[in-house]
Structure formats: C-alpha cells, structure tokens
C-alpha cells in the first residue's frame, strides 16, 4: 500500500512533469501551484514548518496569482506555446529512471528523512501552524487573490467592450 509520503513524492513529480510538458500555459501555472502545495506538505512532514508555510504562501499563492494574471492577459491562441516540444517527451522516462535509481541507491537517505518526519509529526498540524503563525499572510493571500480576480475581470471587460 502506498503511504502518504510516497504518494506525495509521486504527485509532486507528476505535477512538475505536467507543468513542463503542458502546451496550455494556464494548465502549466496550475500544475506548478499543485506541485508547490505538494512540496509544502513534504517540507511540513519533514519538520520544516517555516519552509512549508513560505512555500505554500509564496510559491503556491503569490506566484500563482501573478502567473495566472499574466496568462489571462494573453489571447487564447497565444496561450498555446508554439515551440517544438518533442524533446520534452523524454522527460517522463528520465523521471522514471531517476525514481528507480533513487529507490535502489537512495534508500538509506529516505530512511534518514523518515526519522525527521517522525520527529516532525509531534508538532502542530499544518493548518494550525499556518493560522497561529502566519494568519495575516493568509489574509494577504486572500486579498491578493481577490485583487488578481478583479484585475483579470476588469481587463477582460475592456476587451469585450472593444470587440
């Protein structure tokens, strides 16, 4: 049975691959955000709550809003990146080789990480950690999301009116 942590490794890898390989920039931005959420959960699991909180609030929050705002300003046809992406098809194969190699050669390292994870498990939950220590940042994230959505809508409204 796949454990929580292994599931996160796989999910983060898949999201990273989707971010690089996707032809649609919006899908790329969302995949990158999902990867950041996964990385934040792994960091928290390994007793690095501050790194997790910042990964979640900056990479999954702020950066994603900026990416999505930028993508939304592009026209539909521009959102599909028209470059030769054949070479990226080898990426999943490369990721698989790295994963198998890591599984075989890096097992002691994963065991050592698991010790940190067991130590980390004694602390607070990610939710309470976020709320207790970074409450204002979370509200700031909500405000920036609101600003981003309003900016996109106001710009689109102008474009519609022009059409």
């Amino acid at each position, binding site marked *: 049975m796949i454990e929580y942590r292994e599931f996160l490794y796989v999910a983060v890898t898949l999201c990273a691959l989707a971010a690089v390989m996707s032809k649609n920039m919006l899908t790329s931005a969302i995949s990158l955000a999902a990867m950041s959420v996964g990385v934040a959960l792994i960091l928290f699991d390994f007793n690095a709550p501050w790194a997790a909180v910042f990964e979640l*609030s900056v990479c999954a929050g702020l950066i994603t809003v900026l990416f999505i705002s930028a993508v939304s300003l592009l026209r539909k046809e521009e959102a599909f990146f028209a470059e030769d992406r054949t070479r990226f098809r080898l990426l999943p194969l490369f990721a698989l080789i790295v994963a198998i190699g890591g599984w075989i050669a890096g097992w002691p390292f994963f065991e050592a990480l698991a010790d940190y994870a067991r130590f980390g498990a004694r602390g607070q939950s990610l939710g309470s950690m976020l709320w207790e220590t970074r409450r204002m940042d979370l509200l700031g994230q909500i405000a920036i999301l609101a*600003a981003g959505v309003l900016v996109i809508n106001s710009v689109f409204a102008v474009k519609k009116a022009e059409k």
Partner: protein
Amino acid sequence: MTISLLQYMLIPLFSALLIPFVARRRGRLAEIFATVTLLAGLINIGWTLLNPAVLASGFSALGEDGFSLLMIFTIYLVGLCVAFFSASYGDGRGVNTAYFYPLLLVSVSAMCGAVTSTDFFTLFIFVEVLAVASFALMTSDDTKEGIEGAVKYYLLTFPASAVIMLGLAVMLLSAGTFSFDSIRIIIYSGTSGPALIFSLALMLLGFLVKSGVVPFHVWTPDAYQGSYAPVSAFLAGIVTKISGVYAVVRIAMFLRLFETGAFRLSEVLMFLGMVTIAVGAIAAMKQDDFKRMLAFSSISQTGYIVLAAGLATPLAFIGAIFHLFNHATFKTVLFLNSASLEKATGTRDMNKLGGMEHAMPWTSWTSVIAMLSTAGVPPLSGFWSKIIIIIALWDAGAVTYAVLALLFSALTLAYFVVMQRRIFFGRKSPAAEAAAEVSPALLAPAVLMSAVIVAAGLLFPYFFSYLAETIASRMVL
C-alpha cells in the same frame, strides 16, 4: 495585528468581493456599497480615536499602536473622499464600476493590512496586494496615458519588490525572524551583526523606489498625471505613501536603535530626503500641466517626511508622521480639484486657466487652503508639521538641512502664491468664461478635506499630544 484592528482590513475586503455580484446589473449599487463601507469604517475609527474617554485620558487610554490608528483613519478618509468623488465624476463613461469600486476597497483593505502588520513579511505581502490593485486602478478609464503610467509603475516598482524580498531573505538568515518586536529585541541586545543592517538597507532601498524618492522618482509624475483623475488623488494622497513612505518611516525607527553602524544609512536617508525636496520643488516650478505640477510637488513633500525619518529623533518622527497625514489631506484636495477644473474647463494647462475664482469659487478656495497648507502657512496643518521637522533638524545639530528645508519651504510658498494668482485670481480667461462650478457632490470631498486641514491646524495641540503620547513615547523613547 491585534484582532480589534482586523476589522478595518476584513470588512472592505468582504465588500469588494460582494460588489461584483450585487452590482452586476445596477452600477449605482457599487458606488453605494463602497461609500457606505468606507463611511462606516471612518466613523468607527474616528470614534476609536476621539471618544470622550480617550480624549479625557490624553490619549493614554489608546491601547493600540498610534501610528497604525492614525494611518487607518487617513486611509479611510482619503478612500471615502475618492469613492464619493468618483461616483459623480465618471458618469459611467469608460469606467467599469462593478470592478473599479471593489479594486478601491481591496486597496483600502491592503493598506490597512500593511499599516497594522507587525512583521516585515506581512507588510511586504500587503504592499504587493496594493501594487496589483493600483496597477488596475491606474488603467481604469483605459486611456493611453493611464496604461503608460501603469506600465512605468510596474517596471520600476517590481524590481523594488525583488530587492525587498532579497532583504527579507537576508533578514531571515541573519535574525531568524521578521517580527518587529523580535528584531527590536535583537538590536537592543547588541547581538545583531552587519547582515541585519544590510537586510534593512535592502528593504529601505526597495521602499524608497516605491515612495518615488529622487533618484527613483521617474515613474511618479507619469503615473499620477496619466491615471484616471480620482485615482490620481488616491495614488498621490495615500497609496504611494503607504506602500513606500510608511515603510521607510517604520524602518527608520529600527535604524535609530543601533548603537553604531546604521548611522551612515540614516545620513543617506536624510540626504535623499533633502535632494527630493529640492528636485521636486524645482521641477514643479517648470510645469504647465496642473496635475503634473502637483505630482512634482507631492514628490517634494515626500522629501520632508524622508528627511525627518532619516534624522530619527522622537520630535522628527512626530513631524514626519504628522506631515504624512497632512500630505494625504492637502494632496487629495488638490488632485480632486484638478479633476474638477479639468471637467469644467476641458484643460489642465495652467496657461489657459485664469480667474477661475469667479466661475468656480468653492473649487478655487478649497484649492487655495490646500496650497497654503502645502506651502506651510500658519495656522494650517502643513505649517505645524514643517516647523516641527525644521525644529527637530535644528535641535539635532543638522543646521544646514534645517536652513535648506526652510529655504525650499519659502520657495514653495512663493511659487504657490504666484500659481494661485495665475489660475484662480486675476482676469477671467476664456476657459473661466465658459466654466461653471461643479456639482455639490464633487465639491463635498474637497470641502470636507479642507475642513480637516483647517481643524488639524487649529487643534494642533491635540494632534501633538496624540503623536507624543501614542507614538513617540511608546515606540521611540
């Protein structure tokens, strides 16, 4: 942030999220929602600051940070005036009210978040929220000038954000915290190394760019001049002051705590403040466009605040914070009135305006009050803040800066007197012949703000005791 201050940030944010849904079909509802939200907030913070128990205690009963409370009051005051003015100014032309007012409210919410934050990272987040909302507000009427100003604003302020982020990273590495209180304790304990000063210097640099201080001021006149008229008042009056100047004053409060090592940084700050006063005042004299002249004048006034922040004595902080408040009041009046003049005459060219007092007496006289306050004429509020800054400079031995500040203040006064004569008094110009006074709804914000300018000047002892009791004695001494 304490829970009691959270409301000032959360309520406008909720209102902003609600407006696009409720005002989808009826644009007027957006204006009503925004105005009512801001009015309620202003009454609430006004009561918190000025209720009888607080006045009777000489402001010592106020438990919160006095700097934050005064800034919240100023934010709501300017926000209300701009929202009320916009409702009558736009007449629905080219501005999407269902998104304009929510963006205004998000800006108010972000500014309240910034001034009530108790750590550098949170402050940075809210400043970025403000930057995103300001960008869209500048382009509200979709004009070429507005877009040009917004792009310049983005191109110059986003590298500044990167520098601030770098400063945050160095701070976390050197001090292990972003919290104002913890940083203060670290500095007091004497365990802080040069890395902490370096992190503060990086952040200071970023916020100076966002303040539009010389030599980082190139984006400011274009942004103010090109923006949708009520947005210019909002930007010049409060947005750039909170996203830049407020943070500079906060950081300066930390610099003075260092025993050695940070004084050079304070000296640089004072020098930049003085250069900003000079460049802003001289550049303002050369302008023909009323709004552009006001933009340079705003840069010059920012210089006084930065100069006082660099001096970093308790009296200098009182002067800087009072001037920050005063600047918000008089620049809001002047920018709103420049919009009224443009609406009534169709021009902002000062060569074409003349004798406007005959056609637009209310607009003219409120402008005169604001200009005299900007120039530092007693007993208006601008006089008191400038004189405090000059006395603080003299008191601390910075005689050259004190004399220069006084000279440029006199220069500003001379120029404003000439300009008043050119625009508002004298023979009626063709533009004045054709113009008529704007509606009472457009005049009301300017009249309210002018009343605040006069009241703040006449009731200066109360202001001084507020600033001394809630800011200087608690945060600096």
